[in-house]
């Protein structure tokens, strides 16, 4: 896709099944995408579409049933965890150990990977990282309960960032925050991107935030990646009926203009079989692609 920048992460034909033998449920079907250095790839989809599962496979929390994940060209072994790939979780309340001081939470990765030579260096790095994410050094000695939701998410970001990752998987990392705090965290993520050139896999159901943060977007439904492209391409010219329905469902903050889906998309009755689709480029761009059959390609009028 983007040949100009080096590919950091390549996911090829990722397949994931859950359940006991014989009664297995395929939740991820041959999903392929890649993330270039410094790029933010936004993965959108409804609950149960498999977006978190993909994130967890990349992190090595699940062993994929098929396909390969390459990081800087090396194939990751199933379940392999890398220091260079870090995660920011959704719920900053549930993801921080309430009995540990925030400084030790942020420094846990340093301890595990023995990334310092002296106690002084350790506390210096933790302090610097807390300041980096907009907290103060003295807060290292406090417990998570003494922080607000937005501050806790800053701790979660500090914990990921202190490992100097090249890729951060952010799974619904702003969903639990209030509107005025969401914007603060989104700005912090953008600032980190600019300063460090870290790549992000930004997983979210909030389409307007995905659009704002991402360089490219992938739309996931029922474990299939259906459409991918740059935010402008997807939002101005959605091709797949599912994407069109999804975008039309976002309530607009303009009281007079309320779009509604012309028809509600229902996979069962749509006549579309995702398994039969192959990747087709849309007429005008290299980046904007859609999963469909040749007939659907004609029918949806993509080439024109």
């Amino acid at each position, binding site marked *: 896709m983007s040949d100009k920048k080096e590919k950091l992460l390549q996911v090829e034909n990722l397949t994931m099944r859950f359940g006991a033998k014989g009664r297995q449920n395929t939740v991820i079907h041959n999903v392929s995408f890649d993330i270039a250095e410094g790029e933010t790839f936004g993965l959108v989809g409804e609950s149960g579409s498999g977006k978190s599962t993909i994130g967890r496979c990349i992190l090595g929390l699940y062993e994929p049933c098929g396909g390969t994940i390459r990081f800087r060209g090396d194939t990751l072994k199933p379940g392999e965890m890398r220091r260079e790939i870090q995660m920011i979780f959704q719920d900053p309340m549930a993801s921080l150990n309430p009995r540990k001081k925030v400084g030790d939470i942020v420094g846990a990765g340093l301890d595990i990977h023995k990334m310092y030579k002296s106690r002084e260096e350790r506390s210096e790095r933790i302090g610097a990282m807390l300041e980096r994410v907009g907290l103060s050094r003295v807060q290292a000695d406090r417990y998570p309960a003494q922080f607000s939701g937005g501050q806790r998410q800053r701790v979660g970001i500090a914990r990921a960032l202190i490992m100097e990752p090249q890729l951060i998987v952010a799974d619904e990392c702003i969903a639990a925050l209030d509107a005025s705090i969401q914007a603060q965290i989104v700005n912090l993520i953008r600032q980190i991107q600019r300063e460090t050139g870290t790549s992000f896999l930004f997983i979210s159901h909030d389409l307007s935030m995905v659009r704002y943060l991402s360089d490219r977007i992938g739309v996931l439904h029922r474990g299939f990646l259906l459409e991918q492209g740059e935010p402008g391409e997807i939002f101005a010219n959605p091709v797949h009926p599912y994407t069109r329905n999804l975008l*039309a*469902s976002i*309530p607009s903050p303009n009281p*007079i203009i309320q779009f509604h889906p012309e028809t509600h998309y229902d996979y069962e009755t749509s006549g579309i079989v995702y398994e039969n689709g192959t990747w087709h480029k849309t007429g005008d761009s290299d980046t904007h692609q859609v999963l469909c059959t040749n007939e659907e390609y004609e029918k949806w009028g993509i080439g024109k």
Partner: protein
Amino acid sequence: MADKAEIMLEIKGLDISFRSAGEMFHSIRGVNLVLRRGETLAIVGESGSGKSVTMKAAMGILPDNARINAGSILYRPEPGSEPVDLLKASPKWLRDNIRGKSIAMVFQDPMTSLNPTMTIGNQLIAAIRAHEKVSRKEAADRAVTLLEEVGITEPERRMRQYPHEFSGGMRQRIVIAIALSCNPSLLICDEPTTALDVTIQDRILELIVSLQQKRSLSVIYITHNLGVVARVADYVNVMYAGKIIETGTIFDVFYDPRHPYTWGLLSAIPDDASGEELYSIPGTPPVLSKEPAGDAFAPRNPYALEIDFKEEPPMFRVSETHYAATWLLDERAPKVERPKALNDRIEKMKKEAAEYVR
């Protein structure tokens, strides 16, 4: 149009504190609100702003550690009837006449508001028979009709199923069916679509709007999603730290917001014109264990005047329908413009709206 309908619910000077961990939290600090029959009103605010507590007070379902310090909630169950102060009514009277009967509530999470061990048919029948003396058979027939009305196919078969056999959107439909089972006149929806996907959210909102027209219901939405407000409401009340700080029609508030907090909320929604930095309101909402000096929003308000730190602003009138509690509207205040990015966005929205209408 609005002036003709009678006032159905009027909250005056509501003031509520909570006791928690030995401290008193003053979470509702003088809320005034008017709902006319047949209208849709939205209350927006962040968590802890007091939007749910206000409505729970009206329903008489405040937790035990809440204390009502002052205020009244006048409610007219029937058109033309005498208003009753719900805060003075006995718990029994509230249970028999108001809660679940005249005022029904739909909560955020349909999984926790349904009983997982009961079939949805039995839950509907129980809800109907709790308020009306009808036979089981008759209640069951009504339940089937209700399920049909909220868009559940094969209602007879679905009656025998348990909540876990339904998707989130279908469960919320069932919750709505239960809420409608005693023909309420007022429906309070507390974050009804927050737990749902956007495509499902769209359908649930569509359902509520169509039921509202068919049954001439009045609806109060409690939400933090301004897009949902713009889509469904006639009037908006923006809450911050236990007070309503701006109120008006959706056109007043979305096209001509006056309070800096409303500016912040509207600016924080990213759109295609958002640049490198998304506008964000600095700081965090106050903890209401201490009485804020002056305006509670002042410490986060880049437009705060000196008086904001000393005295709380009253509600200033902008127009007949539009009021905002900010000293910027005082005639002595210096002239302060809305942030340019927000003004540009409003201009763009108006232009798009004009084209859309044409």
